[in-house]
C-alpha cells in the first residue's frame, strides 16, 4: 500500500472528491458508449490514426473547447471566492491551485491548441497545398499536446495540483516550498506539449516555404498565413529555450540540482529570466495569429482589399523581433537596476508602434467598406476598442518607474485579460465561426451566435474593468481573500457577476454548436461568405486531398480575382494524387511518452527509463517501416466522382 500513498491528494476537499467521481463516471460513460455503439473501430481508423491536417485540426479545436470549459470552471471558482470579503469557499491552498490551473490551461491547453487547430485546417488550404510537409509528424505533435494536456488535467485528482502560479517562480516552486508533486506535473506536462509545439513549428515553416501553389509568392500570402509564418519562426526561436528551463526546473525538483536554489551557487532569478524569455514571445505566438484572423475577416466583410499589405507584414515582423527583447518588463521590481529597466521599458513601449500600424490598417480597410455585420465580423469589430484599452494600459505598465505601483495588482490582471481575451479568444472564436463551414459543410446559426457575442462582449467589460480600479487601489493578485475594510467588496462583486454573464456567453456558444449541428442546412456551397482566399475555392467540407488540381496563383487575393476578373484558378487536368498512409504509431508513441512523464513525476525511475526505450523503439520502427511505406494513390476517376458529388450538391 505504501507505493500507492504517493498518488493520494495531499490537500483534499469535497469538490476534489466529487470531481474524482465525475471523472470516473464520464470515462466509464465514454467507454460504454463507444462499445455500445460499436465506435471503437471508427474512432481508431478515422481519428486516432489519422494524418490528415484537417482532422488533426478538428481534434485540436475540440480539445481546446473542452479545455476552455475547464479553464472557465476554474475562473468561476476564483470569482466566486473573491465575490465578497473574507469569503471561505476556497482556502488559500485551493485558491493557489485553481489560479495556477486556470493560467496554465487557458494559455497552454486552450489558446495554443486552438491556434494549432486553425493553423492546421487553414494554412495548407490558403497556400494551395494537399497536406503539410510532414503529415505523420503532425499527428505526433497533436498527440504530444493531447497527452501533455491530459497529464496536467489529472494532477488535481492524482497526487496534487501545481500551486505555484502559471509562472511557477522559483524558489516558491522548489521542492522545499511546493512539496507536493504538483509542480512536477507542471514541468512534465508542459515539456510534452512544448515538444509537440516545436515540431509543429518546424512542420509548418517547411510547409509554407516549400509547398505553396504554383505562382504564389511569399508577398502574396494571405495575411493569416503570413501570421502563421512569423508565429512559427517565433516558436522555433523560443520553445527550445522553454524546454531547457523546464528541464532545469524538473531536475532541481527531482534530482537535486542547484539551478534555481538559493545557496550553493543557484540563482532563483534565472528561472524568471528563462521563463519570460520564452513567456513574452509566447503571448505574441498567440496574438500574431489572432491579428492574421482579424485581417482575413475584416477584409472579407468590409468587402475591400486589406489596407497596407506590406506594412501589415512589416509590422508583424517588427513585433516578432521586439517580442524577443522585452522579457524583463515582467519583473521590473526584482532589482535588475535602472539601466536595464530603462532599456526594457523603451523596447516595450516600442511595440505599441507596429501594433498601432496594424490597428490603423484595419480601420482604413473598414473605411468606405460595405460592412456586413456577420458574427465573425462582430467579434473582430469588438476586438479593436477593447484591445486598445488593453494596449494602452500595457504602455502604462511598461513605464518601469510607475510599474512599482501596479506590479502584481489586479490592474495587471485586468490588463492582460484585456489583451488576451479580445486579442486571442475573440479572434479564435471569430475564426472558428468563419472557417466552420469549411470544416463541416454547414454554418453556425447567426442569431444564436450574436446572442453569445453580445453576452461575452458586455460581460467581459463588467468582469474585468472593475479590476483596473481595485488594482490601482492596491488589491493584490493571487490573494485568496481580502478584508471588508479595504473597500474592494462592491467592485469585486460586480466583477463576479460579470463572470457569470461571461460564462453564460460561452455556454450559448456551445449551445450554438449543438443547435447548428442538428438543424442548419447542409447545402451551403463552397463560398458562403463571399470570401477572398484559396480555401473558399474548394468544396465544403474539404475532400481528403484538398485540391483536385493545384491552383495557379497570380495575386494575393487569388480567389477573389478569379471570381471578379475571371482568372482560371485550376487550368490543370486531374492527375493521380499521392497520399500518406494512416498510422497508429504516433498515438502509441505518445501514450508511452505519457507513461514516461507520469513515472518521472512520481519518481518511478525504472518505468521512466523503460518508457524512454519504448519511445526510441517506436522511432526505430518507423525508420525501418518508412523504406517500404509509400502511401497510396487516389485515382483520377475517384477524384472526378468526388468532385462531381461535392460540387454538384453544393451548386
Amino acid at each position, binding site marked *: 500500500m505504501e507505493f500507492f500513498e504517493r498518488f493520494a491528494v495531499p490537500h483534499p476537499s469535497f469538490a476534489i472528491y466529487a470531481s474524482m467521481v465525475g471523472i470516473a463516471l464520464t470515462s466509464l460513460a465514454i467507454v460504454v458508449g463507444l462499445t455500445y455503439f460499436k465506435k471503437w473501430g471508427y474512432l481508431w481508423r478515422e481519428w486516432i490514426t489519422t494524418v490528415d491536417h484537417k482532422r488533426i485540426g478538428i481534434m485540436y479545436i475540440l480539445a481546446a473547447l473542452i479545455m476552455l470549459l475547464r479553464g472557465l470552471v476554474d475562473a468561476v471558482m476564483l470569482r466566486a471566492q473573491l465575490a465578497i470579503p473574507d469569503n471561505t469557499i476556497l482556502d488559500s491552498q485551493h485558491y493557489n491551485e485553481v489560479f495556477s490551473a486556470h493560467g496554465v490551461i487557458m494559455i497552454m491547453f486552450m489558446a495554443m491548441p486552438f491556434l494549432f487547430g486553425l493553423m492546421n485546417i487553414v494554412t495548407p488550404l490558403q497556400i494551395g497545398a494537399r497536406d503539410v510537409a510532414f503529415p505523420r509528424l503532425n499527428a505526433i505533435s497533436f498527440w504530444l499536446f493531447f497527452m501533455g494536456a491530459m497529464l496536467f488535467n489529472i494532477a488535481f485528482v492524482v497526487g496534487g495540483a501545481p500551486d505555484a502560479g502559471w509562472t511557477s517562480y522559483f524558489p516558491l516552486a522548489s521542492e522545499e516550498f511546493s512539496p507536493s508533486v504538483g509542480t512536477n506535473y507542471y514541468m512534465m506536462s508542459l515539456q510534452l506539449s512544448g515538444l509537440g509545439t516545436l515540431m509543429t513549428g518546424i512542420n509548418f515553416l517547411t510547409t509554407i516555404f516549400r509547398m505553396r501553389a504554383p505562382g504564389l509568392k511569399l508577398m502574396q500570402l494571405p495575411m493569416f498565413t503570413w501570421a502563421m509564418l512569423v508565429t512559427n519562426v517565433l516558436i*522555433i526561436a523560443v520553445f*527550445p529555450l522553454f524546454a*531547457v528551463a523546464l528541464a532545469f526546473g524538473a531536475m532541481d525538483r527531482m534530482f537535486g*540540482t*542547484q539551478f534555481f536554489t538559493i545557496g550553493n551557487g543557484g540563482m532563483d532569478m*534565472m528561472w524568471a529570466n*528563462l521563463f519570460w524569455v520564452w513567456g513574452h514571445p509566447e503571448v505574441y505566438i498567440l496574438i500574431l495569429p489572432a491579428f492574421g484572423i482579424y485581417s482575413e475577416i475584416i477584409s472579407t466583410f468590409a468587402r475591400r482589399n486589406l489596407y497596407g499589405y506590406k506594412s501589415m507584414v512589416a509590422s508583424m515582423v517588427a513585433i516578432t523581433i521586439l517580442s524577443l527583447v522585452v522579457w524583463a518588463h515582467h519583473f521590473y521590481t526584482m532589482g535588475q537596476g535602472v539601466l536595464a529597466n530603462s532599456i526594457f521599458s523603451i523596447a516595450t513601449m516600442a511595440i505599441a508602434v507596429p501594433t498601432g500600424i496594424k490597428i490603423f490598417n484595419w480601420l482604413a480597410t473598414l473605411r468606405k467598406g460595405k460592412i456586413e455585420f456577420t458574427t465573425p465580423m462582430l467579434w473582430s469589430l469588438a476586438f479593436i476598442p477593447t484591445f486598445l484599452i488593453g494596449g494602452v494600459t500595457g504602455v502604462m505598465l511598461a513605464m518601469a518607474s510607475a510599474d512599482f505601483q501596479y506590479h502584481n495588482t489586479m490592474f495587471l490582471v485586468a490588463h492582460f485579460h484585456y489583451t488576451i481575451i479580445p486579442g486571442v479568444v475573440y479572434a479564435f472564436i471569430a475564426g472558428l465561426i468563419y472557417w466552420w463551414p469549411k470544416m463541416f459543410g454547414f454554418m453556425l446559426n447567426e442569431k444564436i451566435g450574436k446572442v453569445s457575442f453580445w453576452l461575452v462582449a458586455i460581460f467581459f467589460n463588467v468582469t474585468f474593468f472593475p479590476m483596473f480600479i481595485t488594482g490601482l487601489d492596491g488589491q493584490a493578485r493571487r490573494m485568496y481573500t481580502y478584508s471588508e475594510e479595504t473597500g474592494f467588496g462592491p467592485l469585486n462583486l460586480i466583477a463576479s457577476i460579470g463572470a457569470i454573464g461571461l460564462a453564460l456567453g460561452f455556454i450559448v456558444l456551445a449551445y450554438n454548436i449543438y443547435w447548428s449541428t442538428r438543424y442548419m442546412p447542409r447545402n451551403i456551397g463552397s463560398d458562403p461568405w463571399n470570401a477572398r482566399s484559396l480555401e473558399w475555392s474548394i468544396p465544403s467540407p474539404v475532400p481528403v486531398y484538398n485540391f483536385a488540381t493545384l491552383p495557379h496563383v497570380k495575386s494575393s487575393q487569388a480567389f477573389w480575382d478569379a471570381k471578379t476578373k475571371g482568372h482560371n484558378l485550376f487550368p490543370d487536368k486531374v492527375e493521380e494524387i499521392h497520399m500518406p498512409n494512416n498510422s497508429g504509431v504516433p498515438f502509441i508513441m505518445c501514450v508511452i511518452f505519457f507513461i514516461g512523464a507520469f513515472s518521472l513525476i512520481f519518481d518511478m525511475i525504472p518505468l521512466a527509463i523503460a518508457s524512454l526505450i519504448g519511445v526510441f523503439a517506436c522511432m526505430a520502427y518507423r525508420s525501418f517501416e518508412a*523504406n517500404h511505406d*509509400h502511401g497510396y494513390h487516389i485515382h483520377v476517376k475517384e477524384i472526378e466522382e468526388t468532385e462531381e458529388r461535392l460540387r454538384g450538391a453544393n451548386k
Partner: protein
Amino acid sequence: MKIDNSLPLEYSTEENRLKILGFWIFLAAEIALFATLFATYFAYQGRTGNGPGTEIFEITPVLINTFALLTSSFTIGLAVNAMRLGNKKAMLTFLGLTLALGLVFLGVEIKEFFTFVHEGATIQTSGYLSILFSTLGTHGAHVSLGFFWGLFIIIQVSKYGLTPHTANKAFIFSLYWHFLDVVWIFIFSFVYLKGMM
C-alpha cells in the same frame, strides 16, 4: 514518386527536399537550445558554492575528444562523398569509422564524468556544476542518440541499398553529425579552454 535524376540522390524527390529543409529548421531549433545552455553556463560561471570550479578540467581527455569528433566530421563527409559516387561499400566503411570515433568520444567523456564525480564535483554540488554537467550531458546525449541513429542507417543502407530514401537519411544524419561537431567546438573553446586559461 517523381525522381529528378539531375540532382543528387538525397535531393532527388520532393519529399526528400522537404525533409532536408525541415531538418535545417530543426537544427535552428537545436541552435536555440544550445544557445540557452551556453547563456546559462556563462551566467553561472564562478557560482560554485562550496564545490570545485574549473580546476577539475584536464586537457588530455578534452584533446582526445576534440580530435575524435573533428576527425569523425571529416569521415562522415567522406561517407557522403562516397554515397554521391554510388560507392556503397566505401560509404558504409566511412560511416562505421565515424560511429567508432563517436564511441571513442563517448567513452572518454563518460570516463571524464566519473573522474569529476570522484573529485567531489557532482551535478548536485553547485549551480555551476549543474549547468556544466547539463551542457556537456546534452551534447553527449546527442552524440549517443546519433550513434544509434547512424547504426540504423548503416543497417538500412546495407539492407535496402542506396535508394533516394536511404540516401536522404544518410545525408540528414551527416548534417546532424556536423552540427554536433560545431557545438563541440563551442564547448571546447568556451567551456574548457576558457576555464583552463
